[in-house]
């Protein structure tokens, strides 16, 4: 029960795999002690002893295996806890895990629609479970267009499986790099430029769009999508704010009248349009 004295209790997770995705970015596979049924777009609070907790989205669909669950989190070193995970944890290390929290991407009520996924940098992490989900439930969705960009080609995540994404039937993968690089044959510029590309191949009025990336990038994406005629009630964004609890207690993740942790982190654009373009709201 929420509000129970145990609501801040975490469970142990043992790190069993680590992949270096990009400079300073790692994906951890964690054996969670218990059953963790999470859906794409949800997040866990990751705890490092003596330091604190941070919200990190699920970067893969959790695999429940009896009394334990395999989960994946992609972490970029930016603050103290992420630094402690990356510098202080090895295979076999324990972290605390509390979750899953938040609402997740709406995937059930968009059946048959075309899908556009727009990711910027580390923003692809919470979008990756959608791609996996669509791969496993291909006939439930229409065409899939994935627009993904990073500062440099090196900063792209999941490079080892990007090719697999484009092999999902009826799927287009469009990549971009903010800066030119040797051997880079894809777009040079912002990922949001790709929204204007003639290659985007979906039925604009019947397409659901999932976006995650830096907030500046998401604002540009929304403006472009709206000017193209995409529906504002079908644009979904995953937001972040300072967050200390994940369960609507600490109050620090407030965004307008919403709590990112419990009302989000995924928001329908039409629900947040009064706030989203306002600096510092």
């Amino acid at each position, binding site marked *: 029960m929420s509000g129970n004295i145990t609501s801040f209790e975490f469970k142990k997770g043992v790190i069993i795999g680590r992949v270096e995705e990009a400079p300073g970015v790692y994906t951890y596979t964690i054996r969670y002690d218990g059953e963790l049924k999470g859906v794409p777009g949800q997040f866990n609070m990751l705890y490092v002893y003596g330091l604190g907790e941070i919200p990190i989205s699920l970067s893969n669909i959790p695999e429940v295996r009896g009394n334990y669950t395999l989960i994946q989190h992609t972490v970029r070193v930016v603050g103290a806890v992420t630094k402690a995970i990356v510098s202080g944890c090895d295979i076999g290390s324990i972290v605390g895990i509390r979750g899953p929290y938040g609402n997740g991407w709406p995937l059930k009520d968009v059946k048959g629609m075309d899908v556009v996924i727009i990711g910027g940098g580390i923003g692809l992490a919470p979008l990756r479970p959608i791609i996996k989900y669509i791969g496993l439930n291909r006939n439930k969705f229409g065409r899939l267009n994935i627009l993904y960009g990073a500062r440099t080609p090196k900063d792209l995540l999941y490079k080892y499986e990007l090719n697999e994404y484009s092999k999902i039937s009826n799927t287009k993968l469009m990549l971009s790099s903010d800066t030119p690089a040797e051997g880079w044959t894809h777009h040079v510029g912002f990922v949001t430029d790709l929204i204007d590309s003639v290659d985007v191949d979906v039925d604009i009025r019947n397409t659901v769009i999932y976006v995650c990336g830096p*907030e500046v990038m998401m604002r540009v994406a929304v403006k472009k999508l709206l000017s193209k005629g995409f529906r504002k009630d079908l644009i979904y964004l995953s937001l972040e704010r300072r967050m200390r609890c994940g369960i609507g207690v600490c109050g620090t993740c407030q965004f307008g009248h919403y709590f990112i942790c419990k009302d989000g982190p995924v928001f329908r654009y039409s629900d947040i349009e009064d706030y989203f373009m306002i600096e510092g709201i």
Partner: protein
Amino acid sequence: MSINSEFFIGGLKDFEVMIKVLQRLFNDVRFFGYRVSGDRVVFSELGSVDELPLKVSDVQRPNYYRLVPGFRFRHASVSVKNYLIPPEHTLLTVSQDYNILGYGDDLNGNVVLLGIKPCDLKAINILDRIIYGKNPIYTRRRDVIKAIIVEECLEPSENCFCSVVNSGPIVKSGFDIAYARLTEDIIMFKYGSSLGEKVLSRVGLKKADEVHIKKYLELVDRATSVMNSRVPNIKDIQKVLKERISDKGLWEELSLRCVGCGNCNYVCPTCFCIEIEDRVEGNYSKRVGIWTGCRTYTYGLVAGMHFRHELYTRYRHFILHKFLFYPLQVGDIGCVGCGRCSTWCPTGLDLKESLSRLTEVRS
């Protein structure tokens, strides 16, 4: 619980009898309320009736608070929040190998809130709707409250405007007993629940006569009209807030004297935000909840960036949350009109003034 128009009259002696009745009614009962401690008032467990602020009045203005001899105690920098969400509270104790060694609050037994004010009662009502059932400490401390005794305010302080936000000066529901001091030793009592009715009948008070009731209602009316003249109509304020939500210049002007200290957040009875810190104390770590506030620098700060770097954005959140967002979150204004944020602002930034200024600039 509906409004009860039955009034009883008594004195300080009857007040003491009421406390004794309450003590007998519950096992292991602890009284929490405003307590005089030296030359200041704290909110904590009460040892005896002598500790209640029955012989002081407070004088409040922006950035000014003094206690003087009298019988019109309004409130202090502390509030019922100090009981419900202590400034520091342990949420979890963890061993180095990630075992849970313990949970939070050890508060047990029955609690009676004694002498809280109408603004406190409204704050409980708002906090109930936003964190009850979510925050384990709040939920536990709320659940053990067995009776709520409210002292109504018949003379507001200079910073009070509870009538504007419908939280005072008298209470209508959500309490067991309320009392108001007509004079130093004439106290008007009323009950708001069957428990309160039972207690008051055991005290053996006499019914208030017309003269007393007339004086009570006159004082309430006067207090209400004084406070209503201090702040514009809430609907008008809300309309401007919606229109000017992105008017950076206006918010910079309003927040000009804000220093971002967060004192307003800490004294506000409905500000509930907490930071959660690890405190390593040997071979274990305590996960501790600590008050924080939207006016402080770290509110909006994340590793790698800051969502509310400019002070005006944090000041704006404070105002918007109380007057626009709380209504969307819990269906009610989040400001209880107590004026604490003005009294304890180190630069005397006065909420009443800011709200008035907002409606002046209305386009």
